[in-house]
């Protein structure tokens, strides 16, 4: 590669006193453009505040949950100022680009106005954004507080467990689970609900776009969402954290319906579960088979061989479950009778201590349950 050291272009010959562009003030064009940009931003502001933005924020005009309108308010606030800033910046960039373009008649050493800085101006564009962001912070914290503590004591606490690639819904008093592959999830209209979210395998995310809030389903961690459904209807549920090959078809439906309908549906589910012969005959369970089953299906969360209650793995230790002076009752608060132990095995359990999946999630056959109960009650 030859190096060219010879003739340099005109632009590089610096005259000690270069000719400078003369500019009187900001000029009329600047103010015209400013006015135009201001009008534009006012227009977008009007649109965000009074137009229908349902096409970007689904269900914005008729909030589906009590938090949706708060989030939308925050979104609109940011959209108004964000769009305005974008309009001004790009507007000025384009205007300056045209107004101050080099003309073919320019002498080669013509340079722009040699202004290095303007402290007052810089102060303004440091202070104003700071104030704006401070306000935004305050608003965000306010909505954050509502999300965390704003919803009243839950009238319904249900569980969502993420699986590859479906959601499992558990309702109180319902022995069987509802699976998003086959059935929609139901929520009662107008009452505060608490949704406990965890995962059985990898990280998922439980998201209903119209409700705005989402929460990750992380294995070994129970998180929650609290809100009050405000509008009946059918909505999509999506998993928004990559969870494996079929992540994109991990999908469910949420039906929000009046409390009466919801209860009717729940009763129907319970009947179905009962008719499915959910009561297990515990008579002929074998403790030895139960020991094997325990090692196979329970040891992931409960220490094996079973330990005293306080020695937790994920769930508590299960030794002396039937006669532990420190813990006379089961986690359900019921006496440690075989029937009550079987109840936990069938329906799972959720409480401050953690979440245990139910028999469907653990794939426990009736015999497994019988054997496990025999085994656990045999521990002394």
């Amino acid at each position, binding site marked *: 590669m030859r190096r060219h050291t010879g003739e340099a272009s005109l632009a590089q010959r610096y005259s000690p006193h270069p000719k400078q562009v003369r500019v009187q003030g900001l000029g009329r064009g600047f103010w015209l453009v400013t006015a135009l940009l201001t009008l534009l931003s006012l227009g977008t502001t009007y649109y965000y505040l009074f137009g229908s933005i349902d096409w970007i924020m689904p269900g914005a005009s008729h909030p589906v949950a009590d938090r949706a309108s708060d989030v939308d308010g925050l979104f609109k606030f940011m959209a108004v100022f964000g769009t305005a800033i974008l309009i001004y910046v790009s507007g000025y960039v384009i205007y300056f680009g045209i107004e101050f373009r080099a003309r073919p008649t320019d002498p080669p050493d013509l340079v722009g106005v040699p202004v290095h800085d303007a402290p007052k101006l810089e102060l303004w564009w440091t202070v104003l954004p700071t104030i704006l962001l401070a306000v935004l912070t305050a608003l965000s914290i306010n909505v954050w507080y509502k999300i965390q503590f704003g919803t009243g004591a839950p009238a319904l606490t249900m569980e969502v467990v993420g699986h590859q690639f479906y959601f499992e819904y558990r309702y109180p008093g319902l022995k069987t689970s509802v699976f998003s592959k086959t059935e929609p999830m139901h929520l009662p209209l107008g009452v505060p609900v608490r949704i406990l979210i965890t995962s059985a395998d990898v990280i998922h995310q439980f998201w209903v776009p119209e409700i705005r809030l989402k929460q990750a389903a992380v294995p070994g961690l129970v998180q929650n969402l609290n809100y009050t459904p405000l509008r009946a209807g059918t909505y999509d549920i999506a998993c928004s954290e990559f969870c494996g090959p079929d992540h994109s078809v991990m999908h469910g439906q949420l039906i929000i319906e009046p409390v009466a309908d919801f209860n009717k549906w729940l009763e129907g589910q319970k009947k179905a579960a009962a008719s499915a012969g959910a009561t297990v005959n515990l008579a002929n369970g074998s403790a030895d088979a139960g020991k094997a089953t325990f090692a196979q299906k329970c040891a992931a969360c409960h*220490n*094996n*061989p*079973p*330990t005293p209650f*306080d*020695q*937790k*793995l994920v769930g508590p*230790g299960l030794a002396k479950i039937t006669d532990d002076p420190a813990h006379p009752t089961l986690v359900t608060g019921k006496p440690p009778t075989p029937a009550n132990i079987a109840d936990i095995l069938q329906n799972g359990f959720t409480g401050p201590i953690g979440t245990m999946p139910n028999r469907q999630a653990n794939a426990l056959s009736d015999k497994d349950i019988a054997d496990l109960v025999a085994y656990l009650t045999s521990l002394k």
Partner: protein
Amino acid sequence: MATAAAAIPHGGGHAEVAARYHDVDPVYAETRDLRLLGFVLFLLSDCILFGAFIFAYIYLRVSAPAWPPFVGGHQLPWFDTSFAAFNSIVLFGSGVTMHFALENWKHLNKRKFNMWLIATIILGIGFLLGQAHEYSVVGISWAGSTMGASFFTLTGMHGFHVFVGVCFLTTLAIQANRGVYTGSKYFGLTAGTLYWHFVDVIWVALFFLFYLW
């Protein structure tokens, strides 16, 4: 002239260097200065490597329901503080001897320099043997639990650093006796000393976090 000389503010790094080392070979002076800064920055980034794993250890320990964690039904044992305390002193002692070694080199006292440097190397090897003994009796496994994971990863990384340090110091001992370094040019020894002190200090953190916390 005064204005002439003042006309160049010495913002440029190497001018300051030259000012500091105007008595020694300027090329060496500058090279040393670059290497020193580079080496210190390397130690800093190494700190962050340990820091990240220490963060992981603290995170896991704090979020665990019980510590030491339970594995297969029984709780893991605590580490043996008394032996660790003894072993730490071995390592800290080697730091002091290394410091003596460098001091003696600066005062051109080569015999003492060799003595202290060899003492340092021996103490370093001693510490490694101590770690080996620790591993053999600690009674937990790397893949067995979060405790083992953090313990073996962190102390293993540290042990590797000590091992590298021992090799480093041995090389320095050979070079020094081959006359690679002089009374005014001994950056290798400075680097070795800094590295060795650094390894000691990392151990201070690990000693506290695993044995005393």
